[in-house]
């Protein structure tokens, strides 16, 4: 099935083909290490950056379904919750165990990554179970089902002792770090961009454009939609798992429908189908309340408006969306990427690289 629809020109490179896929990861590692070192003395900045990173993962992964495939999922917070709780419970149970042949810090990180992956896989499994029946149909069924799924997960968590009910889970080891978060941001973006450039991405694009025609061309529409949905859910689970390891407490209130809509807004704002758009929008919308808070503080509205920023966030989102729909209905970048839209000082070659 993996037949490229477009003959890809042979890229000349000094790196052997087998290692080329790993190259971006290897290049990212020292950058992240430096980043971690710079961040080590700034707890609030670390926290904020981690939240931005988690939101980027959520937006970029949702974009695979809502943007690239043209389906409409509005329950992303549900998959995030699955990842957060599964990995949170796992980490709580593994807390006192250490691998004796490794230093404690390293052993912690090993368990952390393990529980991240378990959280991601659990979310992916949920994605498969939710996606398979609803993606066989065309139309709005996925929206309804994912909406229901998100709420079901929240209610289940709220009523399960193992998940701490409404009080939430606390005491999860805080093993996450901005570097770790951004490593997974990087992986998510890499996967999303690889999908766009592959025949898999072409298939998703065809489905987005015209599902009937795509089917007539021989695209296994259900199969591709489910695969996209499972990949998206997996990263949502990873995002949730990361989140659980740097906030002091996770509770059902963090994974409501409002959170799902927040992610949808990010994807729509960035442009349905644009990975870089999702990144920019996620960063902007996450930092927006902080910016407003500082603004109100500077204006001397301390104690009143500055405290209420979190409450006025949703009306601001709504306003932003209305303005966006009027001014730029396709989102910031439409289906394109930042280097297609911004001036040409970013060389066009990068499109092929990413």
């Amino acid at each position, binding site marked *: 099935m993996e*037949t490229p*629809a*477009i*003959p890809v020109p042979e890229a000349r490179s000094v790196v052997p083909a087998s290692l080329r896929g790993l190259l971006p990861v290897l290049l990212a590692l020292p950058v992240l290490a430096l980043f971690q070192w710079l961040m080590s003395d700034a707890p609030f900045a670390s926290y904020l950056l981690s939240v931005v990173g988690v939101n980027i993962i959520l937006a970029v992964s949702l974009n695979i379904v809502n943007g690239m495939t043209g389906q409409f999922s509005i329950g992303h917070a549900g998959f995030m919750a699955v990842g957060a709780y599964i990995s949170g419970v796992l980490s709580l149970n593994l807390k006192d165990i250490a691998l004796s042949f490794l230093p404690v810090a390293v052993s912690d990180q090993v368990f952390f990554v393990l529980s991240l992956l378990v959280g991601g896989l659990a979310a992916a499994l949920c994605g498969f179970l939710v996606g398979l029946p609803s993606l066989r149909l065309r139309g709005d069924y996925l929206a309804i089902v994912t909406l229901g799924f998100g709420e079901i997960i929240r209610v289940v968590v709220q009523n399960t002792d193992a998940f701490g009910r409404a009080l939430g889970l606390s005491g999860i080891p805080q093993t996450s770090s901005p570097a770790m978060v951004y490593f997974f941001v990087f992986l998510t973006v890499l996967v999303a961009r690889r999908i766009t450039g592959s025949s898999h991405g*072409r*298939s998703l*694009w*065809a489905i987005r*454009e*015209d599902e*009937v*025609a*795509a*089917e*007539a*061309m*021989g*695209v*296994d*529409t259900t*199969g591709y939609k489910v695969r996209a949905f499972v990949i998206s859910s997996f990263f949502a689970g990873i995002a949730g798992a990361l989140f659980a390891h740097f906030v002091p407490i996770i509770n059902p209130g963090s994974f409501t429908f409002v959170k799902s809509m927040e992610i949808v807004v990010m994807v729509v704002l960035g442009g349905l189908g644009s990975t870089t758009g999702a990144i920019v929008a996620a960063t902007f919308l996450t930092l927006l309340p902080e910016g407003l808070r500082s603004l109100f503080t500077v204006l001397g509205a301390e104690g009143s408006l500055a405290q209420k920023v979190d409450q006025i966030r949703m009306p601001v989102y709504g306003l932003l969306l209305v303005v966006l729909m009027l001014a730029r209905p396709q989102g910031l970048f439409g*289906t394109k990427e930042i280097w297609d839209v911004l001036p040409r000082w970013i060389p066009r070659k990068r499109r092929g690289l990413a």
Partner: protein
Amino acid sequence: MSDAQVKTLGERQAFPPLLSVDGIKVHYGAIQALKGVSLTVGKGEVVALIGANGAGKTSTLRAVSGMLKPSGGRIQFNGHDTTTLKAHQLVPRGMAHAPEGRGVFPNMTVQENLELGAYLRTDTSGIQADLEKSFTLFPVLKERRKQMAGTLSGGEQQMLAIARALLSKPQLLLLDEPSLGLAPQVTEAIFRTLREVNATGVSVLLVEQNAHLALNAAHYGYVLETGEVVMAGPGKALLESAEVRRAYLGE
């Protein structure tokens, strides 16, 4: 007409068998769209399926191409039972469907649309050759190869849909209402090309409301009425039959 007799006119020209549809039924919920449609298409033959709105023409085509699952009956293609196969399994077996309403990918260029037609093929040089072939067949597509398909005129979109379907290298091309919403001259141009396509050995199963054009172009034709075949015969014979003239040609 519950137990309709198929009225057959004239002698059918002999073609080696390619597609045989045997009593297929299709239900949309409680509504039965096809009550048992049987037809055959030979290798190299052009077969037209005519009938009024809602007669079941499109449903027949969709059942044949695997986009709909028939609730009864059998479909054989190239000697294999393909009744339960889906569209993506039938395309590599040589069946191409240009769906109703053209269905081009509007935000892709003409070239990208055509390349998606070759979605399941891996022979890069063969695809290139066939691309060139479709540009000679439809020169206007060559002029517009870098243009977004959504900006083409209706006729050009129809040509693109046909060209795209042909890029999967089909033995059988299923065409749904190629004349829909097109000017008569454009329609005629498309039908002329269709004959050229057929001359290269591709069989065509054509669904049309424009009975005159379709029957003129077809070796053989079937008349569908409320989910059943009521009449069959060579294109010319159907054109001359009083019933067809009265019902579909407005005489």
